[in-house]
């Protein structure tokens, strides 16, 4: 291998820069992890770096913060709730988005471009803005010119409400990513299927869907992580009842004290709630990177 053929990231300077960026990116997380093993009093009094500096750290390491969170009542129920929220909230938008993406990629219909711009435009709307209107919609339904469009469902405070909300918030990005991914598939394959007389439904299920597994897995990882880590949407749509708590809101509640004085527990709480996303990410990492890059470069 000659010098010219070396990849840019193999050069020592690039390596140094990359390592510096990686380290500075990790810096807060290291502090975070260290803090989670320090007793509350010390966390509030001295910084974690000065505790390393004066050697205090090694004598004071404790699992106390972890005990407080792990042995909290009903934490397992909250983990269960988190999965009950995350799994449907991942599957529903992917199912809908896969059909939509196929249509955008392979079917010619009038207004396709406009419709697609509309979908992409939806990504710009901050979800915080739509929380209250959506709550009202799910409670009282919608009546337009005397015609009931959506009935009065009173869904708020149920799992279904959160599934709907996450589906809505996730769909634009899902459609966009999957369409890009599907467009990167070799056109000739789809066309030959068409010539052979395959219907759209057959092409979709037999050809496009199996070929898009990487893209779907990438988005599934993305959506699962976001839904699992979400605090706001779950908090707003599931209400405050203890039996509805998800892990994020339960950890938030455990680490407050009266009015916020127990914040030293936040680090250990976050580490515990982070375990699931880490497992998911490392299992699906291969798909994740391939899926995202596949769409962006080739499409």
């Amino acid at each position, binding site marked *: 291998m000659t010098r010219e053929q070396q990849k840019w990231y193999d050069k020592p300077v690039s390596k140094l820069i990359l390592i510096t960026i990686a380290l500075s990116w990790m810096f807060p997380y290291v502090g975070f992890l260290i803090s989670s093993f320090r007793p509350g009093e010390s966390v509030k009094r001295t910084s974690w770096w000065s505790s390393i500096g004066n050697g205090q750290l090694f004598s004071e390491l404790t699992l106390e913060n972890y005990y407080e969170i792990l042995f909290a009542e009903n934490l397992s129920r909250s983990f269960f709730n988190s999965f009950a929220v995350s799994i449907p909230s991942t599957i529903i938008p992917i199912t809908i988005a896969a059909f939509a993406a196929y249509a955008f990629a392979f079917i010619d219909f009038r207004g396709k471009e406009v419709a697609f711009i509309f979908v992409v435009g939806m990504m710009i709307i901050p979800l915080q803005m739509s929380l209250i209107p959506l709550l*009202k919609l799910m409670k009282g339904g919608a009546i337009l010119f005397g015609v009931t469009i959506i009935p009065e469902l009173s869904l*708020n405070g149920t799992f279904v409400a959160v599934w709907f909300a996450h589906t809505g918030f996730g769909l634009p990005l899902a459609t966009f990513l999957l369409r890009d991914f599907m467009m990167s598939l070799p056109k000739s394959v789809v066309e030959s299927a068409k010539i052979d007389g395959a219907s759209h439904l057959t092409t979709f299920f037999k050809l496009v869907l199996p070929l898009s597994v990487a893209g779907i897995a990438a988005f599934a990882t993305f959506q699962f992580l976001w839904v699992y880590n979400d605090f706001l949407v779950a908090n707003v749509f599931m209400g405050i009842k203890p039996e509805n708590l998800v892990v994020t809101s339960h950890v938030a*509640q455990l680490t*407050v004290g009266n009015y916020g*004085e127990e914040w030293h527990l936040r680090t250990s709480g976050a580490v515990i709630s982070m375990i699931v996303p880490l497992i998911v990410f490392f299992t699906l990492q291969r798909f994740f990177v391939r899926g995202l890059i596949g769409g962006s470069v080739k499409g």
Partner: protein
Amino acid sequence: MRKTLIGLLAVVALIAAACGGASLEGEEVLIFGAPATDGPDGKAIQAAMDEFSEETGIIVTYVGSENFEQEIQVQMESGDTPDIALWPQPGAVVDAAKRGMLTPLADLGIDIDEYKSNYSAYLVGLGEVDGVVYGGANAVNLKSIVWYQPAEFEKRGYAIPNTWDEMIALADQIVAEGMNPFCFGMYSNGATGWLATDWMEDIMLRTGGGTDTYDKWVNHEIPFNDPVVKNAATLLSQIMHTDNYVVGGTDAIVSTFFGDAQNPMFERDGNGNPGCFMHRQASFIVGFWPEAAQGGAGTETTVFPFPSIDASLPKAALGAGDMFGVFNDRDATAEVVKYMLSPDSFTAIATNKGGHGSTRISAHTGFDTSLYDKAITQVLAGVLNDALSANAFRFDASDLMPPEVGAGSFWKEMTNLAVEGPGYIDTALSNVENSWP
């Protein structure tokens, strides 16, 4: 066959209705409030409710969130409200009632006259809209207190000042002995100034017409630069601007973080003298003390009531408190409300049942203050109880004034006054007056 089945079902339903109708056993009631579920106050409220559940079979769950105020707004918008919400300020109860969200307490079978006599007409009045009572008074806290160390006072033969003049005389004596009488630090980021407004409020409660003038001042029925207010500002300026009164000097007042302000009291110089002897601050300050000092709250470091100024006025107390609003008129909810308004609902909290460590103080004037397990809470509850019984308890004025003033010009001009000195009093008060919307 079918008919008999339906008939059978109807009979079963009737029996179930007859049995279930009388008792509320198994009914669930949800209370939502600001003190977090797993904190001392949240656990204390739950402990009190558990006692109620044992007696009645009504299952009461308390949920608290540090984002209570935003979340309850969202819940009211969406219609997914709890049965009872416990607000940290009565103004929010009034807002909710005006939006038609709340059930009047009278509709729940509460005797309003009895409620008023138990909790003071003023406190009940804070939760009233057009003469209809919506808010249920619950816990109160006290701001009208001065922290001191009895041992240091005794050692030097100082007496607790009962009047403003005695406090000034004591301060002068301490200065003459080469020490500083007061700790005074008001830096609080964007909210700098609230400590000085608290001082103003305490002085206003004890001068002029007392609580009457105070209420007029809050409602802007007297101008902000009225002579009574000017007199109060002059008295405050006397504390802030007399040489050697404040540890660190006048310049330190604005730059010292309020949470650190009392630290000099716990330190000793070469002669064994503390940095200061008196610090006027609400009871929450204990949480900001150095840890070694916190254990001595109520004993080594305790409080005397803010001294009276006009002896003819009743002993007033400045404070704040929680108030609850009720979202429905279910029978089970009504039972919980009745319990919450009875002194029994505070026994588990005061006696620290289950070791929750809460320091909540009941607003019920008939509550036995000797039940509180902490010395300092007993002292504070005593002062509060006397003031409530005399209907001389008042809410923090700056919280009741329009936000432009109460969380704006009043804070800002009091900070400027601390910096500029007594010559600025007229300008400060006129500026606040002009900013009133």
